Each structure stands twice: as structure tokens, then as C-alpha cells.
């Protein structure tokens, strides 16, 4: 059973009175422990597809299944909380929280509180190699360090599916490679599924499979 699967997913956007089809019947599946990179030119629908996989957007037509269960569109927040971890191109860290607190807060939202949340946050922040920077605010961290915090936040709480949107786009080559290797190691070690939307050819090197998307369809 695939951990994440789509069946004939379609997504339309409305521009004025015009209906613009963005995704056209995508069938896709990822297994536990698998790393898939999703490539495609700008405007091909990568991020829209990732948003649907992440239960952030609802498809116009088609089915999304997580752990074999069709996603109930009324419980998207609950599913995001339980099953999904995100890494964003812009990091999207809370600027007023330290690295450790950014991770701990995500755990609080997921329902883990107090000492348990603090210990888990500590564990993952050390796992991404930021033990000595845990009390730094995001503005005091480099781009690579910020992305490590974002990865730690995604890993915290044991979500079985990790979704990353251009995780290396704002990083230089060396740091980008380090981040990818670390990401791969942690995802594999904990048997998580990882879908990475990217333009970056380096991502191929850590992926088990590359999927290309063009004009809203897999090619």
C-alpha cells in the first residue's frame, strides 16, 4: 500500500470567467522510505500538485489517498497535523522564535506539549546539526541553517510524509548539497516518504525516482 497516492487528480483555477485547467488527471504514488523528485518548468503545476498532496489545496476532481484512506476534505488540517511535514523554499520560520522554539511550536500545534515537545524538538534540532544554534533567532542563522531548522520542523512529530518545495533554491551549491544529503539520510533512516519539487538537478542524485510534470500532466 502506497503511503501517498493520487487518482486522476485535476485542478482548475478561475481567472475571471475563464476556467484554467492546471492539473489534468494525475496518477501518482509514493511508498514509505521512497524519495521522489518532481521536476518541471515554471507554470507546469508542480507547486499546485504539491499543495494538493499536502492537503493545502483541494482538487477539483480526483482522489487523494493517504495511507490507503481517501482524504476527507473536511479534515484537511487534522491530516496535515498528523501525517505531513513541510519544507518551504522561503523557510517560513517564525522570526520571533528561536530555532528550538520553531520546532517545539510545530509540535505544540500537533498536540505534543511541555517537556515531551521540548525533548523531541531538542532531538531533531540536534539531528540536523544545530545543537549549538538552538537558541538563535532565524535572523541570526545563515540560509542553510534556516533550512535545517525548517527540515527539523518537518521531521518533528514523526509525520510519515515529507513534502519539500524547492528546498535548495535559496542556498548556494555546497550548502544545498549538504542539506540534501542530510535530508535524504534522515528520511531514509526514519523510513519516511519524501516528495521534493525542484528545478535543481542535484536533487536527482538523492532521489529514488524522478517524475516530470508538464502542462499539468505527468510525462
Amino acid at each position: 500500500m502506497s503511503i501517498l497516492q493520487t487518482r486522476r487528480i485535476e485542478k482548475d483555477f478561475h481567472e475571471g470567467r475563464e476556467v484554467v485547467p492546471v492539473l489534468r488527471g494525475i496518477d501518482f504514488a509514493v511508498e514509505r522510505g521512497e524519495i521522489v523528485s518532481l521536476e518541471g518548468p515554471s507554470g507546469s503545476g508542480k507547486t499546485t500538485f504539491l499543495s494538493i498532496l499536502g492537503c493545502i489545496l483541494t482538487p477539483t476532481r480526483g482522489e487523494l489517498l493517504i495511507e490507503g484512506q481517501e482524504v476527507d476534505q473536511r479534515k484537511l488540517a487534522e491530516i496535515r497535523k498528523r501525517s505531513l511535514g513541510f519544507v518551504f523554499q522561503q523557510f517560513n520560520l517564525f522570526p520571533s522564535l528561536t530555532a528550538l522554539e520553531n520546532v517545539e511550536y510545530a509540535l505544540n500545534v500537533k498536540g505534543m506539549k511541555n517537556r515531551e515537545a521540548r525533548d523531541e524538538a531538542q532531538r531533531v534540532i540536534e539531528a540536523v546539526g544545530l545543537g549549538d544554534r538552538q537558541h538563535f533567532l532565524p535572523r541570526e542563522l545563515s540560509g542553510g541553517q534556516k533550512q535545517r531548522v525548517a527540515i527539523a520542523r518537518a521531521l518533528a512529530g514523526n509525520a510519515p510524509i515529507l513534502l519539500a518545495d524547492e528546498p535548495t533554491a535559496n542556498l548556494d551549491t555546497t550548502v544545498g548539497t549538504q542539506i540534501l544529503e542530510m535530508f535524504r539520510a534522515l528520511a531514509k533512516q526514519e523510513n519516511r516518504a519524501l516528495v521534493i519539487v525542484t528545478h535543481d538537478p542535484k536533487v536527482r542524485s538523492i532521489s529514488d525516482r524522478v517524475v516530470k510534470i508538464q502542462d499539468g500532466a505527468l510525462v
Partner: protein
Amino acid sequence: MVDLATKSLLHDKLRFFITVSGVAFAVTLVFVQVGLFLGLMDNASLTIDQIEADLWVTSRNTPNVDFAHTFPETYIKRVRAIPGVAQADNLIVWFMNVNLPTGAVEGTEVYALENFERWNFPQGVVDGNLADLRRGPYMVLDDSAKKRWGEFTVGDYREVLGRRLKIIGRTVDAKSFTTTPLTFMDYRLAQSLNESDLRGNTTYILVRLAPGADAEAVRKEIRQRLPYNDVYTKSEWAKRSRSYWIDSTGLGLNMYITVFLGCLVGIVVVAQTLYTSTMEHIREFGTVKAIGGGNGEIYAILGKQATIAAVAGFALGALQAFALRPVMAKIDLKLIIPMELYVAVLLGAVALCLGAAVISFRKVATIDPALVFRT
């Protein structure tokens, strides 16, 4: 638990300061306006509150304690004869002109009794002895007169209605709503100063009830015996005097309008800063949603921020109002802020700030979490 609401609010200290300042401004405005209003109202009935009388007999339809009308002083005999009346005395309250050494003519509001000590009035005597008023052409003057009449000391003379009276004592905090300085003198002396109006006349009869006497029964009996006078209990008379000034001067309406405007300014400032802050943190709120948070989590953040702004603004505003009290006192304005007002303003500030946050609530309810993917 990580307190994102507080940390995020305090992260931008300048914005936090502006928000708190907006609330503090509104709180200070409300405290000063209501405090001044209560101070003025306190002055309007201060003498009634101080005089230890249970009932006041006035001429018919006297609007307040300052604007007294005369009636025959012999009516007091009818009052003293009523069972349940322990003591009754005539009281004259009358405006008189004072010729100052500078040549200027000013007004004074005279309170005249045969025996001031009997009524424990005035209470703030700081110099001299009230009993000495009976001994001659003397007067006791309130310190507030210095502002209008210039400096004076005990032993000085002032000319009241053409007659030189010696100042034999001073009081503090004996005030009327009119701000006309209060003068205390012997009852007969007051009558002799203005014979045309006051000879054989009084303006009030003060009544003290015997222990256990039924105030309502005594009042009914006074009304029967003095059908052309009014009889009030102390609290009724104080309320009537205060209400006169509230209604006739528009003071109450003025206070309500200013309080309303103060609240409006506070709401607008808080709503605007919270909304701007929400818009600036919209990506963060989107992230909260993306990591599994719902609108409830975000409402809790905004609600907590609004409450913190309200409490901090209240504290600053209350402190400012408190600091203004001595400044106001220097210009003879009394700022009365009772505990009930503190509690009401705190609850009001929290309610208004939460109300102001509603606009932000509406905005975050429509956040598209997909914005977290946008660059």
C-alpha cells in the same frame, strides 16, 4: 508550550509600543474625563455630604444647594416641635460680593450657621476655631479663594457687602460646583450683611433625627407642617444637586461623548495596528495552518495579543492618569478614580481590544495556506 502570541507581539517593539500607546491614550482619556466629572460632581454635593444632617428642608423647587431661596426662619419652630427631630438649625447659603484690596470685586458663597461644630462642618479646618465665629464680625475662608482673591492670612480683613470682616481661620477642600470660594460666618452676621433678602429669613433647615426615629414619618410630618417647602433626605438632596449640574450644563453628555471618542480612538489604533501586524505576519499564519493549525489557533494568538495590548495599555493609561492627579490638584481640579472605575475600564479595554481584533479574525479566516509556497 511556546508562546508565539507574546513573542511575536514583543518581537516588533515599536509596533507594540504604538499599540499600547493607543490603548493608553484611550484609557487616560476615559480616566481623566470620568475622574474630572466625578470630581466636579463631588464638589457639587460636597457640603451636603459633609454636613451631618439627616434631612434638609428647602424652599419649594430649589434646584441645588448653591442656588438657594429664602423662607421665614421661624419655620424652624414647627420643625423642632416634631417628635423624632433631635436637632434642627437654620442654614443660610447665599452669594455675596467681596471687595478686594486690589479694588476688584469678587463673589463668595457664604455658609452661615449659628453653630458649625454641631453639624461637624466644614471638615477641613486647618487654622482657627469655628466657635470664634460667634464672637464678632469674623469669617473663615477656604484656601481655594487664594486663586481668585490673591494671598491672605489669618488676621487679614476683607470687605463683604461693604463691611470689613476679619479672617480668623482657613479651611481646605471646601468647594462648590460653581468654584466660587466658600466663606463661613455666623448666621446673624450673614443676615445683617444682606438685610433686604435675609432679615428674618433662612434658606435651609438642617434636621438631625433622634436615634431610632423613622425618617419617612418625620419627613411626612414636616411636609404637613411646611406645605410650601420641600424635604429631602441627605442622599436625595445630594443627588438632586448633582443632577442639576449634569442636566443643565450638558456635562454628562460632554463626558459621554469624550469617553466615546476616547474609546473610538483606542479601537481604531488597536484595530489598525493589529490588522497591519496580521497582514505583515500573514505568511506566518499561513505556516501555522500548513503545519496543521486551524483558525482556532490563530484566533487564540490574535486574541491573546489583543488582551496583552489591552492590559499593558490599561496599566500605562492608569499610571498616566494617576500621575495627573497632583497636576490637576494644583489647578483646583479634582480627579476621582474609584476602584469600580479601574475595574470597569480594564474590562472595557480588554473587550474593546478583542472587538478591534475581530477585523483581523475575519482576515485570517480567509488565509489560503497555499501562500506558504509562494515566493
